[in-house]
């Protein structure tokens, strides 16, 4: 299966960002291994469920490895990993996905700033996670209820 251009792009961004963080960290070999695993995962078994989970898992390991050197570089890697899954070959056909990705990056950036500047991370983390989860449940639930009512039929 042909690898989508968008995936090549985001994997390159993640890999380059990881390589730039090598000289800043102590455990550079872990970052290198995590980057290699992520690149391998991104180009095997295109389009399958296993592949998506593998990309995410290896990507998150890479994010944690890079974060030891720099939280801001790890934010870039995180966006690239999520982009590899979220855009998944639809780019540039579906511009709505790009909007979603843009929104995702903004929210993730805001939260990274919060995590970076906070004295302790747990409370802000729980707060923003709960807010995101609650907002999603409300939006999805209300939409689902509206659709079910609209199409239920009166008889």
């Amino acid at each position, binding site marked *: 299966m042909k690898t989508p251009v968008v995936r090549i792009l985001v994997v390159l961004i993640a890999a380059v960002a990881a390589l730039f963080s090598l000289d800043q960290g102590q455990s550079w070999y872990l970052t290198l291994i995590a980057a290699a695993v992520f690149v391998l995962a991104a180009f095997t078994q295109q389009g399958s469920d296993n592949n998506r989970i593998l990309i995410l898992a290896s990507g998150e390991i890479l994010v944690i490895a890079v974060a030891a050197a720099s939280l801001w570089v790890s934010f870039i890697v995180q966006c690239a990993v999520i982009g590899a899954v979220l855009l998944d070959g639809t780019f540039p056909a579906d511009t*709505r996905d790009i909007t979603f990705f843009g929104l995702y990056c903004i929210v993730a950036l805001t939260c990274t700033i919060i995590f970076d500047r906070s004295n302790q991370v747990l409370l802000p*983390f729980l707060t923003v996670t709960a807010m995101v989860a609650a907002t999603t449940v409300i939006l999805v639930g209300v939409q689902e209820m509206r659709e079910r009512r609209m199409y239920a039929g009166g008889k």
Partner: protein
Amino acid sequence: MEPGRCTQGIWVMAAFLGAAAIVFSDPSFFLATFSLVLLSAALAIRFRLRMHRIITSAQVTRSADPKVLQQGDTTTVTTGFSCRPDAGITVRVSDVLPPATISDPTDALAVVAANGNATIRYSLIPLGTGSIDFPGISLTLSDPFFTSSLVMGSDPFRGPKLEVHPHAAYERSDIREHIGEQEKDTLSICRGSGLRSIREYIHGDDIRFIDWKLTAKHDRIFIREYTSVENFSPLIVLDLPDRSFSVPDEHIAKLVNNVTRETANAIRNYGSVSLFLISGVNIIDIILEETNLQRCIAIIRTSAHPQFRLHHAYRWKDRASMRRFIMKIGGTGSYPQKDESGLFLGKIAQIYRKSLANPSIPVFSTQVRHLIHSLQMEEIVLYSLFEGDLSHIREIALQAQMQRIQLKSRTVAGQDATKIFSIKKALGKDILEVIP
């Protein structure tokens, strides 16, 4: 909305990373966990928006042929679905069946193509009566992360209405056979109001027809016999060829198709049908007064193919034919003859005489007689390719003739003209319908 395997994987990862974040209190773990939660939220909202776009553009056209039918009959339903396609989402569409109906296939569904169109075709058998409305369609949408179903039952997705008329409540006439009543009412789907006779109660009678005055007077239960329609469903006989004969597949297919059509017509017109599947003198299957078309079709599909004939009739003749033959060639004094043909005829006559002296009735003959006696019928429709020995067909024709039942013989086109002629001669009648 249900999470898919990918989403479950993301949640598991988020849980692990969240636990690790709390233990190590490291911002990188918190960032990874939050990213996964945010990704799940984004995927869920994106799926909902895509689904909304699809269902708001959905259109349904549904047709049923026929729209007016009898209870138990089959109507063919064709549902066309169209929507704005979305490359990331798979849409499966199926019809919601009206209550008290059976569909064939039972799980008729279609996957929406890349152009956004799908067509579902299935047969529907209403079991109830009255006006039946199609309740709508059921959509199942899925992407790699989520799956959701929606029943669309609003007005644009409903209809058309089917009008199902009740099946005729035919009376079984064999219950009066021993009483000798033979009157028939004019055709009506309801029990008549005219009184035919009053008789004593027989087990199985409807207690609503008890004449209470006479019952009280004579201290025995009396039943009022109302005039009504009598049901004489036909007997369809399918004679399957021996597997040792090389019969073209298209002949078999044509024969089976015609038997299926005849069965469907009989159920529609008479309410029931009897099927008798044989291969020579070997009985393959019997169904008596069956009202379920699906069951008949299932049996025809299962059994209607060339069979190994375990038993053969060996050009068996009935006693009347043997007597006629002996009388025709000149009785006992003509044996032995000098010329060759006479010698042959004399030999045959001798064999016939021996057979007449030691009467033995073939099992098949007895079975056919019992079958014809047990059923109330006015006609037998016989389908056969007439390959090989025709003794068994001659036997059926004879039994039908004795019971004054009309026998219609049918075969498929594409057979030798001389063979058709010999069949007509063997059956002793010129009526042999050749199916085109």
